[in-house]
């Protein structure tokens, strides 16, 4: 029984059905948000402050954050995550030829366009009833492994890294900086830094060695990405049915060369982030609470087995579990399912605290998925995107352009760690050339490069917080490189067998079809759900990792993952006067999610489009 809240039960054969005797099985009562205590505290106590971070800097895109902080008790009372721009792609795609979708939806993100192209192609392939050939699948896997080798270092060293730099730590926690000067590093032989202070200096923006190396580390994977996808970040060759590019031994050899060249920096990164995590935990165990929240994770899986994939919805549970990234759901640290049907069935999106209208009163399109499993009126296949800008942002009512996706009505979190956690816990990973899922860890056997071969092991952590998120991301880069390398060897083998076909031809069906692309971004979960009829898209719904993580409160008043993480964060910063408070602990908590909001960077109003971050809520310009 993976569902605790939705009225779904399973028969003896494991087939799900809606619990009998319930008139309106998906109905719910909304809970009003009560801010009276917080408002009272704000009124009565000078040390309780409203803190508006607008925009939150060093994240990708337009994110603002509101919180109420007690500077005396060092506690956060309230947190509200605000996606300050409207993501209009779901509206833009409606009515278009489905073959436009992968090119248009790629523009959702200026960082990871390729993942959207692939998710879109997968949804179209399911709707069209076509499957890419093995070479096409292997090449997609290689490129979308390499994409994350560009994306994750940028976050670790340019966006989040400065939070752990000398410049920041010396200012916000002078005692910690003094300790860093006296603390010897554990892995000097690998990364070369003698003390923690030296390592923190390397995180300094613009001048720090790791900051600069992090930027340079993005070039080689981008080159490899462009070899097969045509260009970065918006690929030209990802099409329904596979890839439109041809491949020769030369492209594969050039890709191999580039994967090998990226591995050393990734290996070293693991030890850098192990040092940071251990140092902060040791300095003050309360750092384990920075950004903590329940261990609830969701991941739709990624990297299809080129030899065991048919792209149909019916077979999704089987091909899903053959992926290099096992799909799954973790609730309170326990893996509850790896079945893509269950994952899809439990998915709902709510808009009670978002600038959207609901859609249920227009009738529900589907009561079941194509396999006859029940789905909610709030499921993406039933959802309509109906923007409803309001003139005033209210923390009790509506405050964001993000929606509240939930699984089985639980607040969930997406990320590289969800992908690795589920893959490690499920112990179903069938690809063991470089990787091994142990049930409690993921072992990565890295080849010899300039550094010796290593067996790196990411263990499912006992605590969950900002440090573990960043540490996992460092391991995730190695994981992605090994997935890419494994798939490259498969591509070499396919080439040896003369199986070089990269795409399957198709015709656009004219009847009603539905499809879903279960894929993943550099930040985790990514799904594209589509409905098409008469050769055009009727509905298109995108759920990105940041849709999940940055979500506002749901109908029951439960905050999204950022909001939970910030409310649980203790204020450990050193300050004597309120004006010295920088909010670094809150920033560390938020940035550890690697917020990616570029999907919100195009806002439509009647008169113009804003193409970059704005400092006010989008409703201000409508």
């Amino acid at each position, binding site marked *: 029984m993976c569902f605790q809240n939705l009225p779904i039960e399973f028969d003896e054969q494991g087939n799900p059905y809606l619990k009998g005797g319930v008139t309106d099985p998906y109905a719910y009562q909304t809970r009003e948000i009560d801010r009276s205590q917080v408002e009272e505290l704000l009124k009565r106590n000078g040390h309780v402050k409203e803190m508006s971070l607008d925009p939150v800097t060093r*994240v990708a895109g337009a994110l603002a954050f509101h919180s109420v902080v007690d500077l005396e008790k060092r506690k956060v009372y309230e947190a509200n995550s605000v996606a300050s721009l409207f993501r209009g792609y779901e509206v833009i795609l409606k009515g278009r030829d489905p073959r436009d979708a992968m090119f248009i939806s790629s523009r959702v993100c200026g960082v990871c366009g390729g993942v959207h192209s692939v998710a879109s192609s997968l949804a179209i392939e399911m709707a069209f009833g076509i499957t890419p050939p093995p070479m096409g699948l292997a090449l997609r896997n290689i490129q979308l492994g390499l994409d994350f080798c560009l994306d994750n270092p940028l976050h670790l060293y340019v966006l989040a890294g400065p939070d752990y730099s000398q410049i920041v730590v010396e200012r916000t926690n002078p005692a910690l900086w003094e300790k860093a000067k006296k603390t010897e590093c554990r892995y000097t032989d690998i990364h070369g830094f003698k003390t923690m202070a030296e390592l923190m200096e390397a995180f300094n923006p613009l001048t720090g060695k790791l900051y600069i190396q992090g930027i340079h580390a*993005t*070039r080689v994977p981008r080159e490899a990405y462009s070899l097969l996808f045509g260009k970065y970040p918006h690929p030209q060759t990802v099409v329904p049915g596979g890839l439109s590019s041809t491949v020769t031994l030369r492209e594969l050899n050039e890709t191999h060369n580039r994967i090998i060249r990226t591995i050393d920096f990734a290996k070293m990164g693991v030890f850098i982030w192990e040092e940071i995590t251990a140092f902060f935990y040791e300095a003050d165990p309360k750092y384990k609470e920075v950004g903590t929240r329940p261990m609830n994770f969701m991941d739709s899986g990624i990297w299809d087995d080129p030899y065991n994939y048919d792209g149909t919805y019916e077979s999704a549970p089987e091909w899903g579990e053959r992926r290099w990234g096992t799909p799954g759901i973790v609730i309170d640290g326990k893996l509850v399912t790896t079945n893509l049907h269950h994952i899809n069935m439990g998915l709902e999106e709510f808009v009670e605290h978002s600038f959207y209208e609901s859609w249920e009163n227009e009738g529900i399109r589907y009561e079941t998925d194509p396999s006859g499993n029940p789905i909610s009126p709030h499921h993406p296949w039933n959802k309509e995107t109906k923007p409803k800008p309001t003139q005033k942002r209210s923390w009790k009512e509506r405050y964001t352009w993000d929606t509240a996706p939930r699984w089985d009505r639980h607040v969930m979190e997406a990320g590289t760690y969800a992908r690795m956690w589920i893959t490690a816990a499920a112990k179903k990973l069938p690809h063991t050339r470089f990787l091994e899922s142990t049930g409690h860890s993921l072992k990565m056997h890295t080849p010899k490069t300039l550094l010796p071969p290593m067996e790196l092991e990411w263990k499912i952590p006992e605590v969950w917080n900002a440090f573990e998120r960043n540490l996992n991301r460092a391991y995730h880069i190695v994981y992605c490189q090994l997935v890419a390398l494994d798939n490259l060897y498969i591509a070499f083998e396919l080439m040896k067998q003369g199986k070089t076909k990269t795409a399957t031809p198709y015709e656009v069906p004219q009847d009603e079809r539905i499809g879903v692309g279960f894929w993943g971004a550099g930040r985790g979960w990514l799904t594209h759900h589509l409905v098409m009829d008469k050769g055009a898209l009727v509905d298109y719904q995108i759920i990105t990792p940041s849709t999940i993580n940055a979500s506002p409160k749901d109908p029951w008043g439960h905050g999204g993952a950022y909001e939970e993480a910030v409310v649980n964060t203790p204020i450990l910063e050193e300050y004597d006067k309120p004006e010295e408070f920088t909010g670094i602990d809150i920033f560390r908590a938020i940035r550890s999610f690697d917020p990616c909001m570029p999907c919100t960077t195009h806002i439509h109003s009647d008169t113009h489009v804003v*193409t*970059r971050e704005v400092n006010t809520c989008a409703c201000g310009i409508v």
Partner: protein
Amino acid sequence: MKAEPVFRPAPACRALIGGVGYRWLRDASFGAVASDALAREEWPPGVEVADLGYGALYVAQDLAHADPPYTRLILIAGVERGREPGRIYMSRWDEPLPDAEEIQERIREAGGGVIDLDHLLIVSRYFDALPEEVCLIELEPADTTPGEALSPQAQPLLDEARALARSLALAH
């Protein structure tokens, strides 16, 4: 008969013409539209045309790694700078770098996927990736609403921008 290989010396001047900006935003996409058109033209050795709307950090990396290095960079973009709209403005870019905080912020934005001509110039200069000569051909946009077509004011200026880019690229 086997042809003798022809070895051409690297041209003394290597010029890159690049369009900068998002697509599908009418005049704000002027750079991308212009570079698409220029890429279809015939060019002598030593002149290349590219869509540079892929992020300042990555453009800077590619400029820095160009071998042989570019000697001239001609950038075309639709940029709102409060000038009379619907006109082309040409200039040589030789601005000093802003303070470190602004550079860091521009790197951060570029890494986050924002496409911006000034990010490209400043980030590239910071990483010492710009050629000696940098010329800008800017359109002050008349219309930046979503859409594929340029505004009626901007459309006729496309040929002017192409001609300017050609003359700058081929000038000695």
